[in-house]
């Protein structure tokens, strides 16, 4: 990548970090919690991006990996009294392990079949959760202690959650960028573009595809863990099939393969229900009642796929090319 482009990108990310750091001082406590939730979706979307955008595998069931992470944290906290912070990496690892386990048989599936299988996982998962009532609290779920900032920091609990989510989020973003630039990232892209070519260059599709599942599930698990901590409650409906689908909407609209586009996708998922009534106001009165958040989500996904398959990130790349001239694909 050329110097000016590199600088532009780095400046953009730096600006985002600065904004994120000071945002809570400018917004209400309630909004801080909303943005904290955006952070959890952001982390899950980062993971989904690794899978779909980077290694070209589809998952319509990432909510299930979030659920694994969320329930791991919840079980550790509720049954074993573990401190919320320590459960986060554990949740990630358990979810990551589940991802690796799923990734192995998933090797045999591709494209449509994988989409089908992951969709089925997401639909069936709540039933599994209810089955193992002993651990998961069944339909009633698990109630957890309310989150509290650690003693030394004088933060409201919402502000603490905000910094927790985004701190982890940016750390994982950095990790993701490093991975993407390094050998693993190149191997992912090689496999996405052509498995046969990758294999003949010594890149094992089986290894990297499974690894992609593991990494993306790890991220999702951390996101799920944060959801559990923030809401202080989990039950089978905390991670429904619609969450998995909205994650897909988020990553597609943000832009597949774009780490920063995930911020946009996450914001879309969180704020659309709030913004929807305002959008609906612009619709003709005859159909105003019909313009609900789900309808708008679905419409956005359909329109984006029809008109702008690169999502928001694709649009950004277009503008970048206009400003700096086209860049050759690595």
């Amino acid at each position, binding site marked *: 990548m050329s110097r000016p482009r590199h600088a532009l990108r780095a400046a953009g990310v730096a600006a985002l970090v600065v904004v994120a750091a000071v945002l809570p001082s400018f917004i209400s406590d309630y909004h801080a919690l909303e943005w904290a939730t955006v952070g959890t979706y952001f982390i899950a979307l980062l993971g989904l991006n690794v899978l779909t955008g980077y290694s070209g595998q589809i998952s319509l069931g990432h909510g299930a990996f979030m659920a694994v992470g969320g329930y791991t944290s919840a079980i550790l906290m509720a049954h074993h009294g573990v401190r919320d912070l320590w459960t986060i990496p554990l949740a990630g690892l358990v979810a990551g392990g589940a991802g690796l386990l799923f990734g192995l048989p998933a090797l045999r599936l591709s494209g449509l079949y994988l989409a089908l299988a992951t969709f*089925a996982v997401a639909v069936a998962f709540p039933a599994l959760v209810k089955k193992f009532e002993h651990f998961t609290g069944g339909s009633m779920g698990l109630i957890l202690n309310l989150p509290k900032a650690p003693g030394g920091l004088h933060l409201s609990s919402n502000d603490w959650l905000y910094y927790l989510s985004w701190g982890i989020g940016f750390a994982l973003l950095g990790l993701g960028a490093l991975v993407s630039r390094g050998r693993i990232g190149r191997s992912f892209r090689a496999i996405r573009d052509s498995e046969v070519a990758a294999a003949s260059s010594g890149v094992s599709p089986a290894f990297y595809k499974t690894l992609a599942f593991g990494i993306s599930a790890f991220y999702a698990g951390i996101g799920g863990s944060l959801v559990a901590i923030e809401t202080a409650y989990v039950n089978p409906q905390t991670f429904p099939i619609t969450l998995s689908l909205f994650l897909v909407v988020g990553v597609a609209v943000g832009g*597949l393969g774009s780490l920063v586009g995930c911020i946009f996708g996450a914001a879309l998922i969180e704020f659309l229900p709030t913004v929807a009534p305002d959008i609906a106001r612009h619709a003709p009165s005859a159909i105003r009642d019909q313009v609900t958040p789900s*309808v708008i989500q679905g419409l956005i996904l359909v329109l984006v796929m029809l008109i702008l398959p690169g999502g928001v990130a694709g649009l950004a790349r277009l503008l970048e090319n206009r400003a700096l001239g086209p860049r050759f694909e690595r």
Partner: protein
Amino acid sequence: MAEFWQQVVAGLASGGIYASLALALVLIYRSTGVINFAQGEMATFATYLAWTFMHHGFSFWPAFFLTLVCAFAGGVAIERVVVRPVENRPVLTVVLVTIGLLVLINGLTSSIWGGAVRKFPSPFSTRPIHVAGVAFSIQDIGIIGVSLAAVLVLGAFFRFTKLGLALRAAAVNPGASRLVGVRVSWMLALGWGLASALGAVSGMMVAPVVFLDPNMMQGILLYAFAAAVLGGLDSPLGAVVGGLTLGVLLNLLGTYVSTLGGEMRLVAGLAVILAVLIVRPSGLLGKAAVRRV
């Protein structure tokens, strides 16, 4: 022993419902190469339409056939407006479009009719009939009958009519079809219309049993996927056989294995999908796919 046969018949009834929706999925997959994730929601929407017709005075069967016509038209419209523009794009794009449709249609259903669970009238009485000393539910037999009728009508259409032949040809070899004058893109729209009507049959048969609510078909969709995969995604006969088999299998498992009752059937369905895709991806009756390099 009597219970066994009752459960088999009940399983065939569920199987008929899965088979109709599975056949719809296979129809679209064969003609356009796409898995329509929104098939269940389209069926739910159609079923709500039927409910609305009955609410406005139509009796069951007139509402049924009117709904089939509307579902057909809806399917054609969706193919023309939403699917045609992305016909030649990569798989992921088309999958995402059908997911978008899923979310959109589900949202519309909720917003138009509200999320409350409703009763849906059944055209069949719930009294049992006795055959060889065993009590069978008329409703189950009725569902089997309607599902089979729908499948047979569709099969006859494909086998004996010119249009059905053209649809088969378009699915098998679009280039050669154009050379004999078949308007291939309209055949695809026709396929979507028929699939949508089949989905409506499935929805209207299951609604009396599980009650009408916007998320009614999500589980059924999973079973339909399992049935289609079991039978072979490109085999219409496989979808029907797969559906009936799955229905009976899940019902028997649910009755005789206590851990697998109720919602755990979803997990059993998932297990079927994973097992078939891993062990024999082409299913029972499908063609073994040549892996394109």
